């Protein structure tokens, strides 16, 4: 008996564009990130940033109450984003009925509920361990978001939380895909969530990982560009409702076809590695085993975020795998930021016909990379895409998604 087909039938996102997927799609088409202020904290002044700490983050004024249970008042920001995104994904899927014991949740987070963890650490350090809030502690664990989604939706199958930084979103998607293909579940929610706490921004800034403000104060992530100097921090949540055999109540947004996972042992703990040949061999071999031909891939939705080493590694792998006949490469993290899984949302929207434009900061391609942040603006969505996710610390994951012509 062949493995069942697996489809994304619902998409939800909480982002700088609120909960509005159309607004997100318009930003992707324009190639322009909507940066907003992080919640200010006098403890982490932004000395090098005249405009303050900024990222592609949900507005502090964003009202999610319509998408949250009453118990949300005790939730961390991560849990609120994730629960809201999950509800949005299910609504987008047409509010399907599901067997709670045969449904799973797989959530990824790179940074975890940083706000609550920071508060607890501060309380211990500067007040007393006895004053730590039990509610904050319960919701500061990395799997708080996944647990809260399960409680909110009554989902009783396996509940996974992956912490693998930039590779997390694709790994979470593949976790659901694998379990559905094996018949261990009928449906699942794959999500990713991250917060943008000023301490996190300050730490990345300290290590010069973030895009630097230009003379005009603008911060631009420039994937594959000669002037690239870092990523823009993203936050929020993205959730995909995924079903076996698809089409229960809503339309099919994408088919998950295959996934490949690997690792680059040359990567230091905090940065990208340089094992282009090894990663390329892993990707090529994985696609071949899955029966996916390279020339069937019409577009690469790249996880390149504008870092020097990360983009170089990504470009090297794409060159090695595809050779000179490369598909179009788009780089949506210039718009959605790093973390918060905006890349998954971008990929699914692209397959639904939403164009992705050249990022506004990408006007001087780095000739050494031989890969450019392009655009897909055709009236016809690509038939098949490859989403890439190379991570600092070494993990790598790729997923192949097909357009659904429902």
């Amino acid at each position, binding site marked *: 008996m062949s493995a069942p087909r697996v489809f994304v039938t619902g998409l939800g996102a909480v982002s700088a564009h609120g909960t509005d997927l159309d607004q997100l799609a318009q930003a992707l088409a324009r190639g322009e990130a909507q940066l907003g202020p992080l919640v200010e904290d006098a403890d982490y002044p932004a000395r090098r940033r005249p405009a303050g700490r900024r990222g592609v983050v949900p507005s502090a004024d964003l009202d999610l109450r319509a998408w949250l249970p009453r118990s949300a008042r005790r939730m961390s920001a991560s849990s609120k984003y994730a629960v809201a995104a999950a509800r949005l994904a299910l609504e987008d899927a047409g509010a399907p009925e599901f067997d709670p014991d045969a449904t799973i*949740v797989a959530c990824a987070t790179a940074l975890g509920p940083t706000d609550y963890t920071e508060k607890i650490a501060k309380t211990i350090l500067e007040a007393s361990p006895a004053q730590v809030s039990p509610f904050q*502690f*319960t919701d500061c664990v990395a799997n708080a978001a996944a647990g809260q989604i399960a409680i909110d939706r009554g989902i009783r199958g*396996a*509940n996974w939380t992956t*912490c693998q930084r930039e590779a997390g979103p694709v790994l979470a998607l593949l976790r659901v895909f694998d379990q559905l293909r094996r018949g261990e579940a009928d449906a699942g929610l794959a999500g990713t969530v991250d917060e943008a706490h000023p301490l996190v921004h300050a730490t990345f800034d300290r290590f010069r990982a973030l895009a630097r403000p230009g003379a005009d104060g603008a911060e631009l992530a420039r994937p594959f560009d000669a002037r690239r100097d870092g990523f823009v921090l993203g936050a929020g949540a993205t959730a995909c409702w995924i079903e076996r055999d698809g089409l229960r109540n809503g339309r099919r947004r994408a088919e998950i076809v295959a996934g490949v996972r*690997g690792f680059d042992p040359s990567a230091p*703990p905090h940065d990208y590695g340089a094992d282009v040949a090894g990663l390329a061999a892993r990707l090529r071999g994985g696609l071949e085993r899955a029966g996916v031909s390279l020339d069937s891939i019409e577009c690469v939705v790249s996880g390149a975020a504008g870092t020097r080493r990360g983009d170089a590694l990504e470009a090297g792998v794409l060159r090695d795998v595809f050779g000179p006949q490369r598909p179009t490469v788009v780089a949506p993290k210039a718009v959605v930021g790093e973390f918060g899984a905006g890349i998954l949302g971008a990929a699914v929207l692209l397959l639904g016909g939403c164009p992705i434009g050249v990022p506004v900061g990408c006007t001087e391609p780095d000739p050494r990379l031989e890969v450019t942040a392009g655009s897909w603006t055709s009236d016809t969505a690509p038939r098949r895409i490859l989403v890439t996710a190379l991570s600092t610390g070494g993990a790598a994951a790729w997923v192949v998604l097909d357009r659904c012509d429902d």
Partner: protein
Amino acid sequence: MRSDVVVTGLGAVSGFGAGVLALETGLLRGETAIGDFGAFDHSRHRTHVASEVPAEIARPAVGSKRGPAWTRADRFAVRAAQEAVDAAGVAEVGAETGVFFGSSTGGLPESEEYFAAVRGHGGRPQARQVAAQSNDGPGNAVARALAVRGPVETFSSACTSASLAMVAALDALHSGEVDVAIAGGADSLCQVTYAGFNSLRSVDAQPCRPYRADRAGLSLGEGAAVLVLETAERAAARGAEVLAVFGGAAATCDASHMSAPDPEGRGAALAIERALQRAEIGADGIDFVNVHGTGTPHNDRAEWQALLRVFGDRARAIPVTATKGLLGHLLGSSGSLEAVAALLCLRRGILHPVPDVGTPIDPDLPIDLVHGDAREVAGLRAVLSTNLAFGGTNTALVFGVPA
């Protein structure tokens, strides 16, 4: 029992010291490793005991200052993984090997140091303190140390992190994604979790007493444990010694409360039933259970209900080992350490005790807890190891003796 995946190597770092031998010796002696500790200043905390890895093992090796930015948990993980791989005799680790790891704290102690420095409480913030602070640090450190090129994934689902890693590893072996899986977990003591569990009044001021009538909470611990898993075919082809069969595994979620298990044990029971089904054995095929057994009133009661649901009246008669009674709760990595403990008991035919603390088993939870002296049991065939977590996740692992 389904026997296409086998265990060929074990490694451990625990409150008993480094190595599986130290672990087994400590377990069989049944003396607790929970006591005073020096990983951090706990004078301002509500309780003052934990199970700490001996200092000479936990501290960084003498060497170049420009060595890898390893956290405490990274060091535990790599040491345990190297022991497991050496024991398995796996000469080549590479493209068809994956690392599946669990950690709930990662480099949190080092992040606490960094945070204190940032807040002006001593020292200068250093890159090494935050470079490997992510929860995926230990798993990545293992993958780097062993030059793995296959899938590497870290799960951070609180107390089921490492056991979920083992579920994922089993899946990857069954699907053919890997031929060898290095599965395990690592966690280290830190103030956030110590204060956090104390804020819930979940920590016993004394070493924990799982399933006792006067149990008052858990004890925290640290360490790492790693299992080398491979296909039976591969192990046979290279003439490897098979330590055990990894028959089946499953995970569920209570979906009821973030910090308390479902008091009816329904989710945990479902995980056990599914694991048994996947292992192709019935409940009567299980000869002993290594319980999650934290020593909190809620956990032990819920777990008992789960055992009753699955085993019926036999739940009163199946011997139970409760490793946390000796080594504390290693949080994310507890599932892997307890799996190793369970396998050591299975192989030797001797079930490790918890200390006899002079108080009775809770009469409402009438399990056959092995306590006081180790218990020799002839003809052991299979063990079930269970874990329950914050967020409601439950896991069940089934191991058996090799054919």
